[in-house]
């Protein structure tokens, strides 16, 4: 049984979700995770400015909804983790034959040179807001609006793992090989998700992320 918590005024906001809202989502998510047993919760999943809570179907939802609605207005925003994850990236050259096959397309769309795209993409510090889509895929906030490029009309059947890509006004890294609709501008050799690690996901909500040109692939 599902209970999605997304206050109307926040849900209607266009992207990007302000960091202050997301910090409250992290805080509420952390609070609920600490009270997992009490509310018999199965999943607590932060989204972009929202939170999915899955409770055991046998339990009454009233104590949970009451607690969430009481917490939300007063919850102390959880600061960022303070951790910066550096992602080494081999950026594409624009030839289309390398780690960033869509670099030329992004250059054509944005009107920027490849060097300028790399500069703007790697000089920004991004915040990992939440994880989803694939195991270990971080939704990153902070893409320079001048780099926004629409998704591909037809998704690629095979986007290689480690691909660094732009989709609309977002950027991200594909942890595993699979279909993907974003424009690939580079590749990293970092393993974003490994289920055998103590902490399987390299990125955690609240982390800062920086892309470092060179030596990625």
């Amino acid at each position, binding site marked *: *049984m*599902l209970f*999605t918590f*997304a206050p109307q005024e926040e*849900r209607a*906001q*266009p*992207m990007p*979700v302000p960091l202050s809202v997301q910090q409250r989502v992290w805080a509420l*998510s952390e609070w609920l995770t600490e009270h997992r047993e009490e509310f018999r919760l*199965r*999943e*607590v*999943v*932060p*989204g*972009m*400015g*929202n*939170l*999915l809570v*899955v409770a055991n*179907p*046998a339990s009454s*939802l009233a104590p949970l909804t009451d607690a969430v609605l009481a917490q939300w207005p007063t919850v102390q925003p959880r600061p960022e983790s303070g951790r910066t994850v550096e992602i080494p990236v081999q950026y594409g050259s624009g030839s289309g034959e390398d780690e960033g096959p869509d670099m030329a397309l992004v250059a054509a769309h944005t009107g920027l040179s490849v060097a300028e795209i790399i500069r703007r993409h790697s000089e920004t510090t991004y915040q990992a807001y*939440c*994880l*989803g*889509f*694939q*195991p*270990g*895929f971080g*939704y990153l906030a902070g893409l320079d609006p001048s780099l926004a490029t629409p998704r591909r009309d037809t998704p690629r059947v095979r986007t290689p793992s480690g691909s660094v890509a732009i989709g609309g006004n977002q950027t991200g890294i594909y*942890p*595993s*090989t*699979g279909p993907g609709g974003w424009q690939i501008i580079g590749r990293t050799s970092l393993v974003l*998700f490994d*289920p*055998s690690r103590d902490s*399987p*996901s390299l990125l955690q909500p609240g982390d800062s992320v920086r892309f470092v040109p060179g030596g990625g692939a």
Partner: protein
Amino acid sequence: MIEVLRCGAMTSVQDLGRPGYRHLGVGHAGAMDCIAVRQANMILGNDPAAAVLEVSVAPLVLRFAEDTHVALTGTDFTASLSSTSGEHAQDVSVLPGHATPVRAGSILTLSRPTIPGAHCYVAVAGGIDVPLVLGSRSTDLSAGFGGLAGRTLAAGDQLPVGAVTGRCISSRHGVRSIRPIHILRALPGPDWDLFTAEAQDRLPKQPWRIRHQSNRMGLRLHGSSLPLRQPVELLSSGVMPGDVQVPPDGLPIVLANDAQTTGGYPRIASVIEADIWQLAHMPPSTSVFFRLVNREEAAAAMAQLQQYLTRLALTIATDVAGED
């Protein structure tokens, strides 16, 4: 050890799934019909979470290296067991829902499902003993971990079998599959209010045909489309198997076990947990109806299903004890 001699597409190792990791982007995976898995494991005296093979496309031909028992549940397949003792080859058909003894060297053949495209489960005493990954033996096919090397089975694969922990039911008895009724009970979804009154009315009234692009990620439906009051751009949020998403074309998709953990399409409804197993038995071109229920009805349906499983476990325990 079990050797895979022949194998159709999409056969994989699954158990009851990998809950609790959606915040890391890890999907549920697991058997589409977890009731059938529980039945099979009860028949064989296995742990309820023992891993089984999920089969939707014939054939599947397996050779067993040791004496054991197998059980088939879910959609019925035409199945037979061939054993060679001395010069005599023997071919017997395998009844679904029974504990079927298997002699070392025997070959089990699943040739034809009674409903093409629906799922059958092959369980073995002791369970398929692939390593636990994040608490489950299920195959995460999109991320490529769990199960056997994170992929579907192929001819030549060797499947390890776990130690037998319990006793099978007597050969005189069987467990009947629960038949899908092709009606999915559903709660109004988180984005119900974003849809027109016409769409809200249409969802439970018309039959929805399952499209061919359906798979373990989701069942794509065809019918008169479900329009929104106005176009919306939703922020990505967590989604669950059973959620009924409606992309811009207005044709709903029921998310299934391998659905990704986040989505951005409006959700008009959520199939209740007690009915999600039916998704395993709704192959392309068949039709399904939705029936809207409230939370109390959803909880009651789950309690009823739980009660069935408890009663079945008791009946089986009595049967096994009676063999002494």
